[in-house]
């Protein structure tokens, strides 16, 4: 009885430790992804701005300037490129963190899958990540859908909905989308669906290549 009771407590403590470890790892991964994605998106916007500045094409930066609606202070200029670097890094990091927080819910499923497979602990150290298509679609779909709702309603809130002819071009790809509260939800739903499908395709290709290279277990 004593022995059983001790084993139960021991197992419970081990479970708590595992949960604590997973939570810490998710937190770390969130920071890493946010950092990496923030750097990439910030630098991309900075480079695009400089490319626009030095492009021979007339009025190149006209459309890129529209980002200033969502990123205060941003414009196609030398100073604007650095402000764009800041905003790109900040927004990229925030979106990546939000994405990973949702996607991390699949880690439990992935751990179970590894535990069920015949993989030994030595192989586990060199394990290659496999994407869970369903969670990836849900996470990325949710992020882009929220992004569309926020940006559209920002235009409505500013009172420039009627003048937002460029945002209205999205109707080419998202039928029923309009610059209004209702339109933003219709568009977000469609965008979620498209993103989900793209994530299914992406995961299938990634996991397929990993297995083809003999790295998937």
């Amino acid at each position, binding site marked *: 009885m004593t022995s059983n009771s001790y084993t139960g407590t021991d197992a419970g403590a081990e479970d708590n430790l595992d949960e604590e470890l997973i939570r810490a790892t998710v937190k770390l991964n969130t920071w890493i992804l946010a950092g990496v994605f923030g750097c990439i998106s910030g630098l991309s916007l900075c480079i695009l701005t400089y490319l626009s500045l030095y492009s021979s094409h007339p009025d190149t930066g006209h459309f890129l300037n529209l980002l200033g609606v969502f990123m205060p202070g941003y414009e196609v200029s030398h100073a604007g490129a650095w402000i764009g670097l800041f905003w790109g890094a900040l927004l990229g990091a925030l979106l990546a963190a939000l994405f990973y927080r949702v996607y991390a819910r699949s880690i439990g499923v992935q751990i179970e899958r590894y535990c069920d497979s015949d993989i030994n602990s030595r192989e586990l150290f060199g394990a290659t990540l496999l994407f869970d298509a369903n969670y990836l679609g849900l996470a990325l779909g949710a992020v882009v859908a929220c992004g569309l709702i926020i940006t559209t309603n920002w235009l409505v809130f500013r009172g420039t909905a009627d003048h937002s002819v460029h945002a209205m071009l999205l109707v080419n790809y998202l039928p029923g989308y309009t610059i209004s509260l209702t339109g933003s939800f219709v568009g977000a739903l469609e965008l979620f669906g498209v993103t989900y499908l793209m994530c299914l395709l992406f*995961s299938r*290709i990634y996991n397929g290549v990993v297995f083809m290279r003999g790295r998937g277990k």
Partner: protein
Amino acid sequence: MVAFAKIDPVALAVALGCTWGLILFIATAILLIKGAPPGGEAGPHLSLLGVYLPGYEVDWPGAFLGAVYLWVIGAVAGYVLAVLWNLTHKLYVALIVLRAMWWKMMAE
């Protein structure tokens, strides 16, 4: 260690390249299928991507060229992302090990 699993850079490069390439191809194709408004051109705004992707236009050859461009850009982005992700994890684990060794040494 599953949460620390490595991303395969080649697989991520291929997957991201294919997905981005397909997205631009579909985006161009939709505009081409819808057709240009009377007296106008198809996709005047999307064709501005030609500023960054030389030769890209909203026509069928442009759709394929754009897909190739985005494949390359996506592949590079995917590879860099995977390498940075793996490197950061390795550095972090190395830091933890070094710190543990340091404390052990100090305790002794």
